[in-house]
């Protein structure tokens, strides 16, 4: 370590230039960072509720419902001026891009029909084709609405005081997110606001839009956090360098983190907008530890040696980094690994958080080991006044000295007692934690949009929609009277529950039809017993209704039905209770012919809750385990690992206890805090243990050693905890936005508890149990270089496996881009057996030895294939040099010919050495030449897959590839294609391919390869199986393989 730091100091200009160069390069990459706004990033995509919601969205339209309520100040809604507003809003929404036109519901919407009985049978007419002007017409409308109870509390309130327009939006695509939706809705609504009416808008998009807006406050909160952190550092060091240097590290670490994210194509989401503050705080924390040590060493050198200030400066840099580097690397890598381990989380935003923070911490470590020592050695030595001010005794010293006295004296028992009391208190609090994930709860209740939401929930059925989807085994299953009866029973059951304002399904319309067909006799306000009759009613309806009228309630084949449940609350814990009841109630009603699923915007919170409770425990255990293993390894003691965990356990318990005691809900936002606390908290314990060991190893008085550890590392821990708490405290300024405020409070709590835990309980335990890793033979080598190297390797390995971590659902093109490179190895060698089977089953077998090497552009390969059998082609060697921008170069050596011959590049559609694979299949179809669309997601071979349709962008591509369409099944976890279907230029099915026995061959780069390829030509019945053996990658394959010299040689 010393040699290394001395080298850095000696070559400081080079190091600084390189670091700045990297910073510039990465800063440029920041512009490639994609910020996505998609609530799916917070959703566990494999959860049944989420899957059901996606299915409902697919079958019935969208999940994003915006409700617009209009309430006249006086009287009821049946007045021309109010109805005119409804008509204008409806018309405007129908013509707004992004709105699911057929699903807009209001008095004037086309799908809102008056079902009435006539002498001839049934008449279906729009409720309100034009705005009624005469009292008679208005009365007729009023009667029609009353006669069709399906609309009550949905588009007209029961008291007829509020009328609503309900619009469904498609999932927003591209930039703009929900803000784009709301920017379209708001002018339409605002036009109708005047003194005569109250207009209220609500629905999930409203909240998501606000979430985006409030998250952007980070634009000014982040600089403020930087300032506050800097000021706390200044207070701690009382020097300008103390203010500036940690911030430089921190800011560069944030830039590097963002740059690497941009470079790696890992998208950022709005839910991670507070993460830069975390990186800032952690990076500054490490910088403070080193700077603190630097001042200490500088002072010591100046007092004990005759070194000149500039020499002492450089020596102090070397000394401080040498001494504290191992501790910093250990602490930093432990934290980074903890964060990287979050990639196992099901929720994308949490994975992104883990990756981003991990990269940020690794960046900070690199900077602290390169740029900062180089810069520090270049800066002038601290002036005497500066050094003196840094050494002045202040409040920090008094705190640490007091704690040191407690820990090393008889008062240690008090520490145990105090901790015990707090533990009981926190444990009691933790049992009270409520998991609740209502996005509305992120905002103050007094905000205008929340008030409007409350108003709408009060007046109408509710703005939170839950879907109960009934799924039959075959078409027309829904027409069964028993199924419809069960749906009605469910509706009545639900309407009897609190907070359920309304339910709506096809049942309501069928009942209305039955009654209308019986002269409006209330006795017939029920589901007919006869399935044929139901079918006839639907047929009658279809004669005067419109095909899309029931799109929100049943699918075209009457296999699926959707019961819309309007809820007045978005509380996920309440909804969970309701769903539990429903799940107990429904099976008995539905019988075995249909099944049901629950989904919808309101259910998403439940999905998050379920995953979070499970994931939370897993997450904490996981980070804890990583820390335990690594610190045990570094200190060569399991006890060390356990001791390091102590402050973290305290912090986590404090966190949960605090939440339980204050009634703060455990939700997606607060869930991450424990992970942060655990990740950062380990630093404190590690720094302290390192310093205590170092002091004890000097062989002096034990009490003095403890005291020194406190006044040095202990003081730095206090600085860091204060700076992080201070940095996050600025989030308290985010008025109206609980999300930010929770962060501020909980991070501060976690930092305080883990810092105090590291300064009180941890040293107490060490002094009580006197473990060997602290008191025993302290290894003189000091720098656990091997362990650190191992840690770095682990980090690198882990860090690079997040290649396919997405913050949002990736686009089809992004998937294909990753897919294109996922089997591109730096180099490879393999034996392959090609088995060609014709439709009569006759086989041909070719064996080859092949090697490939990626060219410097990272896309094109050089491939050499030597045929080993059958005998007549044995010794034939082909060399293919791919050129993505032009035709490939191909050479062939035929043993009979005795010379290498240059060949014309094959077309992409040509067969690859006589197999059913084309050159295009083997080399890869250029992503940008095809239009890609995510068709669906499904399981294949037990693997969740994206199914991507690719269509050639133009006739040239079509002709060159010989394909008009291909479908690729791409594994979600590694983005490798495991199945393909191909259509020829005439649009006829051409072939299918399967790729099995998938193996991770290059974990560092996340590169995968299937060991078996199979293709079948559907037109000829010919099949090909390619089996790879001895597939090895990163073999440092020599360039010589790709020369004609090698081709001519006998193997």
């Amino acid at each position, binding site marked *: 370590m010393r040699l290394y730091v001395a080298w850095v100091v000696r070559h400081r200009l080079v190091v600084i230039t390189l670091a700045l160069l990297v910073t510039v390069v990465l800063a440029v990459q920041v512009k490639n960072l994609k910020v996505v706004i998609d609530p799916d990033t917070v959703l566990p995509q494999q959860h049944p509720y989420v899957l059901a919601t996606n299915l409902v969205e697919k079958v019935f339209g969208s999940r994003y419902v915006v409700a617009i309520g209009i309430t006249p100040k006086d009287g009821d809604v049946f007045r021309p001026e109010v109805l005119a507003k409804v008509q204008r809003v409806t018309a405007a929404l129908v013509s707004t891009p992004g709105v699911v036109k057929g699903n807009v519901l209001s008095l004037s919407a086309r799908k809102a029909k008056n079902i009435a009985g006539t002498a001839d049978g049934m008449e279906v007419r729009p409720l309100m084709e034009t705005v009624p002007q005469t009292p008679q017409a208005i009365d007729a409308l009023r009667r029609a609405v009353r006669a069709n109870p399906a609309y009550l509390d949905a588009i007209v309130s029961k008291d007829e005081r509020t009328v609503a327009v309900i619009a469904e939006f498609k999932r927003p695509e591209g930039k703009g997110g929900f803000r784009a939706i709301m920017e379209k809705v708001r002018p339409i609504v605002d036009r109708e606001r005047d003194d005569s009416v109250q207009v209220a808008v609500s629905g999930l998009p409203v909240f998501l839009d606000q979430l985006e807006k409030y998250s952007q406050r980070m634009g000014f909160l982040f600089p403020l956090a930087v300032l506050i952190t800097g000021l706390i550092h200044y207070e701690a060091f009382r020097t300008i360098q103390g203010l500036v240097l940690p911030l430089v590290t921190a800011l560069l670490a944030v830039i590097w983190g963002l740059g690497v994210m941009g470079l790696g194509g890992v998208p950022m989401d709005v839910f991670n907008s507070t993460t830069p503050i975390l990186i800032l705080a952690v990076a500054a924390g490490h910088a403070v530890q080193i700077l603190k040590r630097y001042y200490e060493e500088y002072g010591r050198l100046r007092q004990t040696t005759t070194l000149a200030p500039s020499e002492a400066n450089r020596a102090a840099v070397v000394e401080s980094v040498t001494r504290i580097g191992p501790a910093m690397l250990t602490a930093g890598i432990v934290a980074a690994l903890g964060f990287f381990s979050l990639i196992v989380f099901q929720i994308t935003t949490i994975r992104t958080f883990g990756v981003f923070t991990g990269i940020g911490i690794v960046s900070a470590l690199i900077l602290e080991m390169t740029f900062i020592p180089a810069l520090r050695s270049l800066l002038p030595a601290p002036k005497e006044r500066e050094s003196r001010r840094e050494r002045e005794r202040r409040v920090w010293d008094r705190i640490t000295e007091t704690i040191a006295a407690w820990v090393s004296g008889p008062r240690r028992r008090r520490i145990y007692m105090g901790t015990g009391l707090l533990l009981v208190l926190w444990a009691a609090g933790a049992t009270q934690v409520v998991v609740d994930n209502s996005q509305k709860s992120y905002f103050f209740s007094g905000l205008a949009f929340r008030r409007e939401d409350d108003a709408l929930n009060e007046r109408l059925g509710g703005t939170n929609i839950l879907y109960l989807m009934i799924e039959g085994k075959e078409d027309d299953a829904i027409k069964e009277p028993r199924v419809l009866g069960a749906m009605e029973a469910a509706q009545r059951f639900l309407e009897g529950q609190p907070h359920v304002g309304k339910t709506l399904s096809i049942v309501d319309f069928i009942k209305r039809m039955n009654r209308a067909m019986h002269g409006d006799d209330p006795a017939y306000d029920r589901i007919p017993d006869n399935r044929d009759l139901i079918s006839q009613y639907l047929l009658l309806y279809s004669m005067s209704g419109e095909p899309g009228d029931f799109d929100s309630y049943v699918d075209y084949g009457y296999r699926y039905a959707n019961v819309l449940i309007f809820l007045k609350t978005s509380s996920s814990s309440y909804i969970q209770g309701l769903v539990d009841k429903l799940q107990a109630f429904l099976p008995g009603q539905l019988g075995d012919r249909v099944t049901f699923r629950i989904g919808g915007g309101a259910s998403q919170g439940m999905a998050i809750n379920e995953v979070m409770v499970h994931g939370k425990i897993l997450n904490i255990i996981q980070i804890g385990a990583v820390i335990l293993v690594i610190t045990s390894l570094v200190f060569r003691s399991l006890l060390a690992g356990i001791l390091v965990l102590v402050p973290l356990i305290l912090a986590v318990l404090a966190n949960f206890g605090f939440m339980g005691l204050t009634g703060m809900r455990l939700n997606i936002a607060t869930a991450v805090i424990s992970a942060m606390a655990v990740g950062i908290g380990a630093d404190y314990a590690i720094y302290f243990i390192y310093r205590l060991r170092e002091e004890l190893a000097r062989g002096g008085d034990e009490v003095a050693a403890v005291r020194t550890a406190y006044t040095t590392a202990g003081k730095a821990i206090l600085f860091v905890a204060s700076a992080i708490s201070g940095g996050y405290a600025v989030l308290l300024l985010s008025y109206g936005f609980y999300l930010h405020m929770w962060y501020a409070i909980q991070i501060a709590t976690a930092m305080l508890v883990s810092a105090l835990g590291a300064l009180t309980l941890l040293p107490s335990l060490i002094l009580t149990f006197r473990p060997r890793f602290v008191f025993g033979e302290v290894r003189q080598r000091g720098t656990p270089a091997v362990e650190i190297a191992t840690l770095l390797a682990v980090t690198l390995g882990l860090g690079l496996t997040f290649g396919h971590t997405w913050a949002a659902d990736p686009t089809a093109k992004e998937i294909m881009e990753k897919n294109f490179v996922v089997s591109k190895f730096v180099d490879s060698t393999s034996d392959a057996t090609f088995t060609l089977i014709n439709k009569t089953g006759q086989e041909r077998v070719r064996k080859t030895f092949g090697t490939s090497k990626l060219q410097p552009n990272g896309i094109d390969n050089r491939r050499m294939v030597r045929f080993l059998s059958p005998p007549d082609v044995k010794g034939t060697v082909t060399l293919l040099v791919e050129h993505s921008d032009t035709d490939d170069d191909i050479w062939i050596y035929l043993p009979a*010919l005795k010379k290498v011959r240059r060949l014309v590049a094959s077309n992409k559609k040509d067969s690859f050495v006589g197999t059913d694979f084309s050159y295009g299949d083997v080399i890869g179809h250029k992503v940008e030449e095809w239009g890609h669309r995510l068709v669906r997601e499904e399981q294949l071979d037990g693997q969740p897959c994206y199914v991507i349709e690719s269509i050639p962008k133009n006739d040239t591509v079509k002709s060159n590839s010989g394909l008009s369409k291909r479908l690729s099944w791409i594994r979600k976890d590694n983005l490798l294609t495991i199945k393909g279907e191909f259509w020829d230029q005439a649009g006829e099915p051409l072939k299918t391919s399967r790729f099995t026995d998938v193996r991770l061959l290059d974990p560092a780069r996340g590169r995968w390869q299937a060991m078996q390829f199979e293709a079948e030509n559907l037109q000829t019945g010919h099949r090909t199986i390619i089996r790879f053996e001895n597939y090895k990658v990163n073999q440092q394959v020599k360039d010589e393989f790709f020369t004609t010299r090698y081709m001519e040689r006998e193997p």
Partner: protein
Amino acid sequence: MRWRRWALLAVALLSPALAVAEETEPPREGLGRLAQQANLSGSIRGGYWSSSRELDDREHLATASLWLKVAPKLWPDASLLIEGWVRNEDLVHEEATDGALREGYVDLALGPLDLRLGRQIIVWGRADRINPTDNLSPRDFTLLVPDDDDQRLGAAAVKATYHLGGLAISGLWLPEFIPNTIPIRRPLPPATIRERMPDSTLGQWAARIEQTGEAVDWSVSYFDGFDLSPDAGLGLVTPSSVEVLLRHHQIRVIGADAAATVGRYGLRAEAAYTFTEDARGDRPDVKNPFFFLVLGGDRTFIEYLNINVQYFTRVIYGFRSPFEVQNALQRALAIQQAVVTNQLDQVQHGISLRVSYKWFHETLEAELASALSLTRLDYTLRPKVTYALTDRWKAIVGADVFGGDRVSFFGNLRDNTTAYAELRWSF
């Protein structure tokens, strides 16, 4: 030697039957393992030819041959290759069984230097089948094999190649001289024919600089040695006999070639200027100096349809028409010599066309190779169909058709027009 003939026939007929069992279970022990270590491969071939290739009016020939090749790796940077055949070209009649060691050399890789020592086949030229620079290794043009490349034979040589990036610089010493075996009509008695070998061939050498792997593959070469194809002249003439003497004169060939692909087209060019011992052209029994150029290209259509078209020209320097030789005997011989050496006209133009296609996943392949001299309108048409019955069994049928005036290069070979069929089992 009758037993050898029948033994060969028995081998040709029985081995495939024995080999069927081997196909399903490859040998791993004993001899099998030895064969594997020796990297042994080869084929057994049985064929029928409607005519010989020796302009000797022999017809309906049954052939059988055994081709063997061993290529063991001696140590990492050294390997050995021995290849040869034993064949009988007329099992039915009294034809002797013959054998040939085609190649037998050691390859040594010494860093950037490759050394190949021993009998070896050296093939030069990037044009398609018509190669002006290919003058180093002999061919037996009379051998009854469907693949032209199987007619090649090696001669003892030392080849040293130094690799410098994509550049290969070769120097060759060719102490052994084996001439081409060309179809020559046997003169009727009392005339006799005799071939005289050069006295000393130790001075033969060649050099070549070659570039491959870049946008254009090219080479420049020089050869100083003896002409593989003989010149015919009068030998001993007595009142009762005339001896036609075939002699190999010294030539020096300076040549160059290049190949590149431009889009979907492959372009090839090859040219050589041959200095002969008759610089002034006044010796009818020695070839005149000549320039030989081939230019062409190929393109593959609809996946497997490959069409290769080339233009070639030969320009003879110091040209004197053989028809103008005064002495009748010498004139007859000079014309024959000009026909065989393709020096009938001062300037000759021609085109070659080769079309090939593959079906059934490259198991069935058909090819039609042809060449037409525009000067005398003589031509050759060589259709061939190859079908891989299994991975080891292959059936080949084809024909060589020659046409044109008898006093022309291809017309002279009209009697060699043949149809053939061959069944081959490879191991």
